[in-house]
């Protein structure tokens, strides 16, 4: 059986990839994908912990949370993509640098 540590390392790596994506990417769709990667890092961590709690038995709490959270992530993505669509209608571009009219 693969050690739990690998799963956790993978989840942390995914989290860092997601943050990097949010910090560096300029395409709005890619930013939404970055959010998905972040959320899925947490999901992976939950599922791994729930599988390794005790031998031969999978803790249902972790799974319940992940299923609920997948629903939320779906809602957020849907809303984000709606906003992206409207932004595209306004600016005819998906580049976030082009819509930096907001000051600091």
């Amino acid at each position: 059986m693969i050690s739990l540590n690998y799963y956790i390392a993978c989840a942390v790596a995914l989290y860092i990839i997601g943050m990097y994506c949010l910090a560096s990417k300029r395409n709005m769709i890619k930013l939404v994908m970055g959010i998905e990667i972040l959320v899925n890092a947490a999901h992976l961590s939950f599922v791994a912990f729930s599988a390794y709690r005790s031998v031969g038995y999978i803790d249902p709490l972790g799974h319940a949370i992940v299923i609920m959270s997948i629903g939320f992530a779906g809602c957020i993505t849907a809303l984000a993509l709606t906003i992206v669509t409207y932004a595209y209608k306004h600016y005819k571009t998906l580049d976030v640098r082009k819509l930096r009219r907001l000051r600091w």
Partner: protein
Amino acid sequence: MFTPPLDALLMLMVATPAVGWVAYKKGYRKVPGIYASASLLVAAYFLYGLYKEVEVAENGIVTRAFDIPLGACLEIDFFSVFMAFLYIIIGLFATVYSIKFMERDSGLTEYYTLMLGMIAGMTGIVFAGDFFTLFVFWELMCLTSYALVAFRKQKWEPIEAGFKYLIMSAAGSATILLAMSFLYGMTGTLNFAALADGLTAATSEGWLYITLALVIVGFGVKAAIVPFHTWLPDAHSAAPSPISAMLSGVMVQTGACALVRVLLLVFNSAQPAWQMTLAVFAVFTMFGGNLMALLQDDLKRLLAFSTIANLGYIIFGFATVSHDGLTASLFHITNHAIMKTLLFLCAGAFIRQTKTRDLRKLRGIGKIMPVTGVFFAIGTIAIAAFPPLNGFWSEMMIIAAGVRAEMIIFSTLTLANMALSVVYYFRLIRIIILEEPTKVSKRATKAPVSMLIPLLILAFLCVFIGVYPGPFIGASSKAAEALLNIEAYADAVLGGL
């Protein structure tokens, strides 16, 4: 299912589209707004019933629990009731104000549905007894607020601000989720009471601090702690004014309250570490908010930065982790909610009549709209902490609590910040009230009466709490006691095990 007020809010929220559809068919455009206001009154009535229940309950905690420690649970203590009451009252003012303010917008049914959803989410957050329930309601609050910020989708600004807010806040939520998964991995439960025991029992220090950092960052994004605050000025200025009032008056504070509740209950063993971190962040937040507010020429952006500064004071009060500090912070949350709602709603009235948020164009608007101008002046003087208005008492209490908790340097910095903030509040008063009206201001007409009624009540509350703060400080003190009473909170669900 979940306590009557929350049930009422959720059910009435789900029923709003049906009501709105029927009203739309019949041609009554104001019905959804009136329905939403009535729903909030119903929720307030049920909340009063719940308060009576909490008062007689053992240890002052009412629980709704399913299969502890695995299942979801709600724990309602006096702190929850106190905050929920604030949400519903501020929500009621914003809703009543919206009936007139939003009358020219389309999609009103959706607007009020989202508004009720946001209030239900915030109420759920303070009622939650485990991390999972908190997260569910947290996402409800976040999702509805994203949609509300980007509500006027025909314009570029709400779209842009909404997207920025969504990305930052969703990243914060994902961070909270990751922190939750680590807590779950360390203890096998997400119940607040069980987590507190589990974490002190057996965990490596390293993971505990990593989780602590993730929790502070995750909630900090919502609570607009300074390095993570950049969404706030954009979202507050782009949203419709009643929504700005809700965001700035109560939603941001919900982030701070959820943070402090989690820190107090779960990370009790690491208190010295997070106490100092919070205090340092609080000072950064105050300075960031106040210094940026000095530079603003946009009315709503200025108010948004002043919200950041006030959050700094509130978080500093929480960081003292004493009964005095928490009382002062909770009292300041109440006062700030009232003052900031008043200011944003007045700003909304100015903006509605002039179609601009630019302070240079809004000069002397108080002379053209005298009633709104007077209310705005009362709000500004209150938030600038002048006696005998309400802001003075809570801000002085925060400083005093800091001194008593032996954080004198931080208290001095807080005092310096409060002095600094007076500069831009007086600039606001001078521009809005004292200067000669510009061409744009001269064209404005008086605000409609149904918008003035919430303003009148809020301005009255500013003066009333200032003159007679006793009962409000008493309520805050009781809420702070409930927040600090960790053993009773743990016993309420785990006692039976």
